[in-house]
């Protein structure tokens, strides 16, 4: 099975670790992947206006490229995954968006939502399998108490994202167990970090990120893992500073023995 790897803009700038370690892990795990050709920005924010088309076009272009390259679209950044998956859903189910997007893009072949959008964590769970990962681990992170931080974008809206139970997810906990560490459950693992409000109303973002980091600390977490560059920024810059935050790919690379 082939995967078309979509890094997205942030992974080339602020979130290089998320990208670098992901590729190393894919190679180590023997996953067949190639980068999407001439990829561009996902659109960054999913527009909530029902009739908005223009800002969805770049996502459609990426989705159509994956279809052309004949693989599933593999994402890493929570925000990219969120936008791509929701736009794909529109292309499948919303005749108005589908018609207008295809009219704009005039692709060789009409795109009607054929591509499967798979997040890296879903790849680990559903295509590689956490059992297989456990076997591939050479450097288990024994004794480390790690809290999973999901944020909002991977889980909601749950019918569309269909990622995990939106109120009590466990995929990252299962991932943490697979790499030999101990997952720490805490109440705010699926609450918002503050997101973009950080740029306009930092005190609110501070409040939100503190809630998350305080709750994780109180539950005994020594570090947090996330898949989202924006969550990483908020929890690090606006959190309590007592719980370091890592990208999940970095810990996976460490466990698989491919971290430099």
């Amino acid at each position, binding site marked *: 099975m082939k995967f078309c790897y979509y890094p997205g803009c942030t992974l080339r700038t602020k979130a290089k670790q998320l990208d670098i370690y992901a590729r190393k892990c894919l190679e180590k795990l023997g996953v067949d992947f190639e980068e999407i050709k001439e990829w561009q920005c996902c659109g960054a924010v999913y527009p909530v206006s029902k009739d908005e088309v223009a800002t969805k076009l770049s996502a459609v272009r990426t989705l159509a490229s994956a279809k052309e390259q004949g693989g599933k679209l593999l994402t890493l950044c929570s925000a990219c995954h969120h936008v791509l998956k929701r736009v794909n859903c529109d292309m499948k189910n919303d005749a108005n968006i589908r018609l207008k997007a295809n009219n704009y893009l005039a692709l060789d072949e009409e795109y009607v939502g054929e591509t499967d959008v798979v997040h890296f964590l879903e790849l680990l769970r559903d295509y590689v399998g956490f059992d297989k990962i456990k076997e591939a681990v050479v450097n288990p992170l024994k004794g480390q108490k790690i809290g999973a931080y999901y944020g909002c974008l991977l889980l909601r809206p749950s*019918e569309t994202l269909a990622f995990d*139970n939106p*109120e*009590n997810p466990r995929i990252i906990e299962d991932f943490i167990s697979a790499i030999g560490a101990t997952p720490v459950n805490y*109440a*705010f693992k699926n*609450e918002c970090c503050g997101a973009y409000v950080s740029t306009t109303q930092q005190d609110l973002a501070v409040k939100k990120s503190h809630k998350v980091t305080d*709750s994780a600390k*109180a539950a005994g977490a020594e570090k947090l893992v996330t898949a989202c560059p924006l969550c990483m920024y908020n929890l690090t810059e606006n959190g309590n500073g007592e719980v370091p935050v890592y990208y999940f790919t970095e810990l996976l690379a460490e466990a698989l023995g491919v971290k430099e």
Partner: protein
Amino acid sequence: MQKIGVFVCWCGSNIAATVDVKKVAEVLKAEPGVVISENYQYMCSENGQALIRNAIKEHGLTGIVVCSCSPRMHEATFRKTAESAGLNPYMVEIANIREQCSWIHKDIEEATEKAIILGRSAIAKLKLNAPLTSGESAVVKRALVIGGGIAGIQSALDIAEAGYEVDIVESAPTIGGNMAKLDKTFPTLDCAACILTPKMVDCAQNENIDIMTFSEIESVKGFVGNFKVQIRRKARFVDEKKCTGCGVCMQKCPSKKGKNEFNMGLNNRPAIYIPFAQAIPNVAIIDPEQCLKLKNGKCGLCAMQCQVNAIDYTQKDEIIEREYGAIVVATGYKPISLENFNEYGYDTYKDVVTSLELERLMNAAGPSDGHLVRPSDHKEPKVITFIQCVGSRDTSGCGKPYCSKICCMYTAKHAMLIREKYPNTEVHVFYIDVRTPGKNYDEFFRRAVEQYGVDYIKGMVGKVYEENGKLMVQGSDLINNEQVVIPSDLVVLAAAIEPNPSVRKIATMVTASIDTNNFLTEAHAKLRPVESPTAGIFLSGVCQGPKDIPETVSQASACAAKVVGLLSKDKLKCNACVSHSDEMLCTGCSVCANVCPYGAITYVDKEFRIGGGKTELRRVASVNEAVCQGCGACTVACPSGAMDLKGFSNKQIMAEVDAICKR
């Protein structure tokens, strides 16, 4: 040649607003065989029926077509009309131009054309109708009530009071149902046990009532007036006739880790137990999952202690068969599972409880003897937060789309009782809407707010989490337009209610229909609310839809009145539209008998002349007309076309189809 009368009903404006009824009557008058065609505002009214009667007599009609509402509504009415004018009731055909035409179309021209086509189709069928006479069958004068909660108890008592025998079959070891678990009841706050247990005793003492607890319905055969029911009496390992309910066995039992079902699992009970002090029957039962003797053969203490030798470790399930004239379904409800509501932390935090669990925590016979303490540390809670609509009015797919109806009132009751007994306790209630229609209900709710100072917050809760030993309830206050977090000691979830899961199986067995939420469907939502569309099946209590105790009791009594009405008849007219087999075509293949849900088809060996003075013996199907319900399954299944249904013959149906397709 038949002389057919056509009668087109306006149904006020229900039909006439969308269908040009005069034109329909005019066009149909030109159909061959039609001698009179009339239209009238309300054909089902006395005047409308008189119009039909007079026309039958005046024109010597041999059959009539009524273009009106669904035959489910008024076929019986017009058959009676025809009969009273001397016409065979099966020479009546209904063209449904309301539900299947006027109600679903907007364009008058199109609807009128369709009404004419439906009328033609009914005329085409009527031309092939033959007069039918229905047989009679005797009525077994005994009723079965499935479920022994307050609904089943009330139905059984009323039927028994009218002089008929009635059996209650209850799956739990005691009757009493959910109501037995309640502390007090709204809106009068009288104690549930004080008003329920005397009724339970009445059941036990009534000579006409036979109670079978820890029993399940295994199979149901037959039809209205003549049901044959197999009942599985599950092994309780205690002889019900010998046990005196002294309770010594419970004290001596060394295995005390069974979850106490009656207390919602809030404490434990021994492996041998009596569900609660007022259980009916007051007889012990052994839980085979917990009993050391049954699990590994070691123990036997209870048998040694029992003075009357009631313990029987070798007891097996027993299946008994009984006959009934009517069946009451009173299977009740259960609170929904909260697995889809992780945000409230029910599985995570011990002090998040359901309302039914709170009933037990407040009940004098409950695990804490009525002293309200929280389950985690047995301390008195100082701040209690209620969350309403947990899974009710939920369109997300996690819960139920309907309103569970009882939660607003019982939450107000809980809040009031707590403020009354523990005035220093702070009580908050999160709600979407407070719905309190009912006699003295809104007054009751207002008392909770105004007199008892319960803090009602309009808004839903997003999350319950623990912080510094407190349960933090995070929600929105829509009236003050702010986010609130209430540090609480106890959180109570008003979980939605759903029909008891056993109802699906029972509905299948008695061929009663259920809706998408598994509630049993009534024959008519307004006019026949306690009957199932399946004859002889009656609905009592929450199995039909959410309702509180006063409503349940009313419905249970209404249901009993319907059952008594049925049982008071000595004979019932059978369905005349039964199937029959053309012996010359039948090959005796058994396909029809295999698909018949009523067991109406048997096979006989018959001699047939085959020419040349010779005969041969052939196996052919024979239909018992008293048992056949005319469902038509056999006519569809029969590979040689030998099976046909009177009143709905293959020829008649093809004639209808031809009439519809003909332009």
